[in-house]
């Protein structure tokens, strides 16, 4: 097992490292994006009487399984960050790969879900509900895909000489990944269960 103290000292903005401040600014803009969508969906749903008939066509079991995968991937990226702080490069890399795998499984499940819906004739232009559904879950899936790419880059970097210079970015990737998880935590009951 390779063990090294790989955390570089990031520059700081007041008490905040630049990187952490930057990622939180980015997350704030993401809160506005998803918050606007969630708010608009909620208002339209009340206005349209609940959309209960449309929601019957969604597969809550696949979505619940996806929630489990995403929540578990949040745990694995925390473990990756802890391993990074300890200087345990191998465990950090392995946990990053597990996070990547869980993200890919989430995306595959989402693809299966979409294909079932397309087979039944539900498309973004079918109705207001389906428009909201595909916009919100599609945008979320794009964010998951972005996180998968980011985590893959870090996992590859963990096997290279560049790792000591970039290992602190596991924290930022983790913050982003947790945010994606939190968005899904609200999307799941809003779209599938309530």
């Amino acid at each position, binding site marked *: 097992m390779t063990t090294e103290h790989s955390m570089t000292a990031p520059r700081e903005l007041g008490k905040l490292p630049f990187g952490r401040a930057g990622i939180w600014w980015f997350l704030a803009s993401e809160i506005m994006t998803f918050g606007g969508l969630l708010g608009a969906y909620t208002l339209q749903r009340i206005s349209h009487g609940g959309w209960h008939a449309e929601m019957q066509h969604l597969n809550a079991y696949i979505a619940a399984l996806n929630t489990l995968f995403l*929540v578990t991937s*949040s*745990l694995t990226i925390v473990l990756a960050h802890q391993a990074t702080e300890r200087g345990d490069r191998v465990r950090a890399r392995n946990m990053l790969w597990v996070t990547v795998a869980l993200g890919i499984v989430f995306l595959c499940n989402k693809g299966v879900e979409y294909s079932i819906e397309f087979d039944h004739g539900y498309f973004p232009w079918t109705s207001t509900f389906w428009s909201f559904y595909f916009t919100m879950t599609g945008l979320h899936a794009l964010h998951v895909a972005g996180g998968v790419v980011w985590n893959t880059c870090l996992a590859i970097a963990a096997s290279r000489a560049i790792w000591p210079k970039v290992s602190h970015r596991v924290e930022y990737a983790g913050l982003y990944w947790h945010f994606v998880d939190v968005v899904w935590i609200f999307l799941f009951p809003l779209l599938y269960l309530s």
Partner: protein
Amino acid sequence: MAQNHHHGANPYVIWVWLVVLLAAGFIAFAFHLSTMAAVLILFSLAIVKAGLVVRHYMHMYDQPVALYAIAGIPVLLMIFMVVSLLPDIAFHSIPPVPAAEAPPH
């Protein structure tokens, strides 16, 4: 995710809680509760789950005040938007504007 993890809760314990709350939400869904009851229960569970992730996995409990402002202001704006638009969009409290009369030829 702060620099020091030793003051945070065990991430495995948090994960177990998240799974338990997920299961609780799904059980509530299986009982086919009334819409209001379902919304109350499911959103309470979602808020608790999100709180656990934000507090323990994102380590918001030991961050500088500036970070709370960065993250909190957009949340407040979102809530303000929904609350302020609720009467107009959801409950149609504003009567529709009458169609303009055609100009005389």
